[in-house]
């Protein structure tokens, strides 16, 4: 088995989480989710199948929209976007996301940019993947200070979408909307359950000895380091270059 970079594990995990989607939208400053989507597309096409459509928001080259910045939301409302990624200054154990600020609203002690489209997309995109590399108690809190978008909705509230998973720099959680709450599915190489418990401000379900996050096989890794990093370099040149520098270190 070749050595695999931590971010390669994340990218390959995202590709797995996206399996089956027809159309995934990715933020303009989200190279890891974009790489995951591109890897899935490359794998599908290598197998002779049709890969997912990837819309990269804010990119001029990968902008397939022609109706202004409202089109993404219209498109999601029409059920044409199967997957989307959300981060958050805070994420809590109920899947609530806070993109607005820490402390008492409105005079937040720390102000983040704002909710963007989360208060809509979280409701209507079937497969929302929560993604935040930083895995610390200040991010993963018991209860968010401000709900930009709630993890679950009461019976009777129109909701065709929501969170399915939470991917961090340390592990992968599945979201169970019936409880509601997270369950640790796997731990990334180099991390362990005790560390994750300490770094997580909310309670979560887990096996006594959680499995390790699956690593990519050689073919997948070749696709990623070849075609996918080439494609990635068009939109995220600095990220692709950094990945290749890091790989150079690995190979050396």
């Amino acid at each position, binding site marked *: 088995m070749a050595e695999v970079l931590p971010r390669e594990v994340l990218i390959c995990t995202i590709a797995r989480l996206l399996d089956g989607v027809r159309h995934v939208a990715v933020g303009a*400053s989200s190279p890891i989710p974009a790489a995951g989507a591109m890897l899935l597309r490359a794998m599908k096409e290598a197998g002779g199948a049709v890969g997912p459509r990837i819309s990269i928001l*804010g990119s*001029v080259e990968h*902008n397939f*929209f*022609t*109706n*202004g*910045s*409202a089109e*993404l*939301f219209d498109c999601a*409302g029409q059920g044409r976007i199967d997957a989307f990624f959300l981060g958050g200054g805070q994420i809590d154990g109920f899947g609530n996301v806070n*993109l*607005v*600020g820490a402390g008492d*609203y*409105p*005079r*937040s*002690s720390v*102000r*983040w*940019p*704002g*909710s*963007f*489209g*989360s*208060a*809509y*997309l*979280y*409701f*209507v995109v079937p497969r929302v993947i929560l993604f935040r590399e930083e895995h610390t108690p200040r991010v993963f809190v018991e209860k968010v200070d*401000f*709900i*930009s*978008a*709630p993890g679950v*909705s*009461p019976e*009777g*509230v*129109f909701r065709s979408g929501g969170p399915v998973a939470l991917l961090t720099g340390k592990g992968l959680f599945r979201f169970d909307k019936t409880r509601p709450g997270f369950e640790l599915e796997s731990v990334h190489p180099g991390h362990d359950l005790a560390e994750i418990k300490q770094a997580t401000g909310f309670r979560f379900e887990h096996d006594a000895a959680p499995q390790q996050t699956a690593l990519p096989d050689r073919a997948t890794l070749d696709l990623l380091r070849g075609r996918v990093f080439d494609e990635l370099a068009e939109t995220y040149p600095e990220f692709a270059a950094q990945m290749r520098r890091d790989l150079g270190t690995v190979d050396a």
Partner: protein
Amino acid sequence: MVLSEPRAMAKHIEPGMRVALPVDYAGVSMAMTRPIIEHGAGDLDLVCVPTGGLQVDQLVGAGLVRTVETSAVSLGEAGGAPRFNAAVKDGAVRLKDATCPAIHAGLMAAQKGSPFMPLRGLIGTDLLRHRDDWRVIDNPLADGGDPIVLIPAIKPDVTIFHVPIADRFGNVWIGRRRELAAMAYASRTVLVTVERIVEESLLADEMSAAGVLPALYVTAVARAPKGAWPYGLWGEYPADSAEIARYAKAARTTDGFSAYMAQAQMEPA
């Protein structure tokens, strides 16, 4: 339509007006920022369509802003918006935190002459809890229950943006940035800066006409080459991220902000 210049156009802005501004990449008329600040009309209610950045931060920093209705304010890769964030912490601006499609819905209501538009999502968010202008009703077309949010029409007094081309009849070419049209439809006054002004009508052939906001909706146009700088303009030039980062650093303090704003407006040639 009147052919004008940025300082003259800034005079359309009166204290207390509601002013709509586009998202970073759609065509921000940075060329209007300093003329607006010089003109000095304050107590502005900004509507960011659907998010804000440099221009919003500078208007807030100049003390002209009363409220900000937005889905986000940031300088993108350069980080948080320093004057905006400071004003939030000080309580110097009132926030109307929104989500992107709610801003679009409010403008669409105004475009359609309707008092409101319905919008899915939002229920259970703290955005909704803090917006007393948004209303939850039970969907009258359902058999009962099915709560849905109504977003009231957003009718800006003034919309300001920058695009590549206008013709001498006042038609402006917005390309596929159709939120600029939505803003204009909803607004009473529309001020546009452009890279260049052409002689032939943009409506004369169907290819260019497809991307036109007709003169009917345009109050005044002014030529302002590189008028989006340091933002980029689609199809014309990329963003100057070094300059945005330079601003982000300078504007961490009020003094640094003042010093930055006192500099010449345009990029050195």
